[in-house]
């Protein structure tokens, strides 16, 4: 045990930013996410219609549908219909110019139509993801990751502070010096919302589609408003995850991809230098 006070890091210093467990789970879940999203889109292709409530099949009204009329692909949400030829409904395949399927071959796992193989990928990796999420979640509560890095301080949760942070984000004004070591309040809320809200919704709505899980945990059916609602929510949550990944990657690029990637691989992050005004 050292009694010498640790000097406060300054701009330009290399600091240890991410724990080994955080880095490992980040990259493992990144890989799992790609598998889950792509195999999930293949499973969706087997029945590209979404419903609300307990039941829902072809004779019932769907709130979202992807389909094809002749060589035109369409996406219908409620009453609005969009021509999505080339991407949704009808797209270019590896062997044929016009393939009629909801999501295109390049976006699905496997790329050909194969529901059983997609289910094998999805439902095997689902076990790894669910157990890993639970394990990492508990670990993060006990090792201080949630309290120290993710939970906003009381001082940060004021209207003025949040507005100021929003303004900084919009103007791409980056913190420098020691302030860049910690997540700002928007990052905290963003990561907390995804890991504590979106991902549990994704896992639980997925479980709600299983007839066996329905028998042992019927409360899940009530929580999501029925199996077909759970399927719709699962799809919407997956779409939200894609948005999250897109924003996350844009922020990495905007903040110096080399430094950000190094900190998530090795843990070491160089604090930006304090700019003279």
């Amino acid at each position: 045990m050292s009694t010498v006070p640790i000097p406060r890091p300054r701009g330009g210093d290399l600091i240890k930013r991410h724990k080994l467990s955080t880095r490992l789970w980040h990259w493992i879940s990144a890989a799992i996410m790609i598998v889950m999203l792509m195999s999930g889109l293949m499973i969706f292709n087997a029945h590209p219609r979404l419903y609300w409530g307990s039941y829902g099949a072809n004779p019932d009204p769907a709130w979202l549908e992807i389909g094809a009329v002749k060589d035109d692909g369409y996406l219908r949400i409620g009453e609005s219909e969009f021509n999505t030829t080339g991407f949704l409904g009808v797209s270019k395949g590896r062997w044929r110019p016009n393939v009629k399927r909801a999501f295109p071959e390049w976006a699905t796992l496997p790329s050909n139509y194969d529901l059983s193989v997609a289910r094998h990928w999805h439902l095997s990796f689902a076990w790894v993801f669910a157990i890993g999420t639970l394990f990492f979640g508990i670990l993060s509560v006990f090792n201080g990751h949630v309290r120290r890095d993710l939970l906003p301080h009381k001082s940060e949760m004021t209207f003025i502070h949040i507005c100021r942070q929003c303004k900084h984000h919009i103007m791409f004004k980056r913190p420098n010096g020691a302030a860049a070591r910690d997540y700002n309040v928007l990052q905290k809320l963003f990561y907390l919302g995804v890991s504590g809200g979106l991902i549990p919704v994704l896992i639980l709505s997925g479980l709600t589609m299983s007839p066996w899980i329905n028998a042992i945990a019927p409360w899940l059916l009530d929580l999501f408003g029925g199996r077909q609602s759970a399927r719709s929510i699962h799809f919407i949550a997956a779409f939200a995850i894609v948005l999250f990944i897109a924003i996350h990657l844009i922020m990495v690029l905007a903040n110096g991809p080399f430094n950000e990637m190094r900190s998530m691989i090795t843990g070491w992050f160089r604090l930006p230098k304090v700019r003279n005004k």
Partner: protein
Amino acid sequence: MTKAFTRRRLLATAGLATPALLLGYYGKTPDKKTQQALLRSGEWLSFRARNLIGRNALAREYEPEDISPEFRTNGATLPKTQQWNADAKTGFQTWKLQVDGKVNTPQSFSLAQLKALPARTQITRHDCVEGWSAIGQWTGVPLSSILKTVGLTDDARYIVFWCADEMGSWQYYESIDLIDAFHPQTILAFGMNGQNLPVEHGAPARLRVERQLGYKQAKFIMRIEAVSSFEQLGDGKGGFWEDLGNYEWYAGI
């Protein structure tokens, strides 16, 4: 500063590295069989989890107002096999359900005999592997009462349902284990939504095994066979879609 290798950190690393190694191993192995086995680890785990948690848990039963206005049909809707067509002409009066295999007293039941047994009526949800669901009311004989009547031998492990419908030269069949076979909601349904089971839904009798997906709900049943293993049947995977489409034998997920 903290030590680099605490016990907790070591445990965390081991726990988190396992899936990474699994992924890496999948990519490295050129052997199709090993790849298949890895991809099937989900089904393996789910089936064992079912054996541990909620063996006897009941599927949700719905109210009459929850019933789908139109119950979508799927798979075969009109068998071509001779025996079934001959039976259909008589309104299934000549139809006989044969129950044999690993049983003490092989027996056959007429439709009237089945209907004379204590019946169970349940409003349940049918979930297709493709993703859609339909709710219907089913009336039938609990499979357990038929199995108790004939008596299973000690080495019986699975119940196989042989059906009248076929695709090409492949006869439809399905199999379930004894936990599902003796489950109170597992019935041979001869009624649907208050009427005789319609032809397109598997007349005269179909299986309802409510905690599994649609392709397990065998229609047009002609024969029930108790077996100790299904490896010798069909392509050895325990069912029509299991053999032909590589679908999971345990379809509880």
